[in-house]
């Protein structure tokens, strides 16, 4: 995977399949501390301690269709190869938190990439799930909370064309205001 944002899309898809109703994605770049951290949290079915212990093993998967599961190992490797860290905490019935920390300036850190596309795709493809997305760049940040959108919209679905393009503009403009167009 060439971008961190593609890893985020992939790992967040696991949350949707875990039956989560709320997925929280938090990206924060701290230039002074030279860190980029990504936290993906869900309230899905969670995993047992045995599953957590094995989930970073590419030859472990709960699917029965085939024997490999590469998404989490890819993400872990991407973070750790920059001198960062990776962790998964999970409780059955409560949900899962995946945390990846990257060293911003490390030569092996892949670019964050098109995070706006990732979040837009997640929301549009799962219009019945809620997403809480926070993007922080040093002191500035913005948040997108689909629950807030839903309160305003009532029964208009998030994937109606007008709303979809509003969400796209919201993500694009607010990201630009937050990071000033920094190329992470």
């Amino acid at each position, binding site marked *: *995977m060439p971008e961190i944002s*593609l890893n985020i*899309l*992939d790992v967040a*898809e696991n949350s949707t*399949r875990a039956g989560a109703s709320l997925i929280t994605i938090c990206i924060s770049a701290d230039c002074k501390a030279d860190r980029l951290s990504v936290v993906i949290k869900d309230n899905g079915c969670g995993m047992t301690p045995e599953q957590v212990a094995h989930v970073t093993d590419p030859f472990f998967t709960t699917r029965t*269709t*085939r024997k490999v*599961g*590469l*998404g989490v190992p*890819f993400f872990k490797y991407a973070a750790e190869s920059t001198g960062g860290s990776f962790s998964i905490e999970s409780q059955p019935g409560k949900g899962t938190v995946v945390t990846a920390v990257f060293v911003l300036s490390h030569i092996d850190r892949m670019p964050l990439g*098109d995070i706006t*596309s*990732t979040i*837009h*795709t997640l929301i*549009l*493809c799962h219009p019945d799930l809620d997403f809480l997305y926070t993007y922080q760049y040093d002191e500035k940040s*913005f948040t997108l909370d689909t629950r*807030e*959108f839903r309160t*305003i*919209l*009532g029964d*208009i679905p998030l994937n*109606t*064309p*007008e*709303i*979809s*393009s*509003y969400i796209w*503009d*919201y993500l694009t*403009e*607010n990201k630009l*205001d937050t990071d000033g167009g920094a190329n992470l």
Partner: protein
Amino acid sequence: MKSLEELRAIREKMQGQVSMRAEDHTHTRVVVGMATCGIASGARPVLNTLSRLVQEKGLTDHVAVTQTGCIGLCQYEPIVEVMEPGKPKVTYIKMNPDKAAEIVERHLIGGHVVENYTLSSADIN
């Protein structure tokens, strides 16, 4: 910063508009494989192109673009399946945004399967 006021304005504008969504059984479903294999080979821009064009061309009343997990043909990703009611499923392989645009134009609008990109036309040996 873009505000929620604009969202309220959009809602006001949309109120009273009768939803023209067709019944599910008359919908054409366009499904993109979005597991690790699909995403790694470029499924996200394919999905984005498909949903953007379907909206721009005003096809949302009878075409729904959705995603699925791994289809089991990882070597052919990105894969796009088109399921039209009453017709056999068409599986397009090794998609990219340009090919996706062609499928919207020629298949979803024109009604003709783009044979060159289908799985059945692939040389499987």
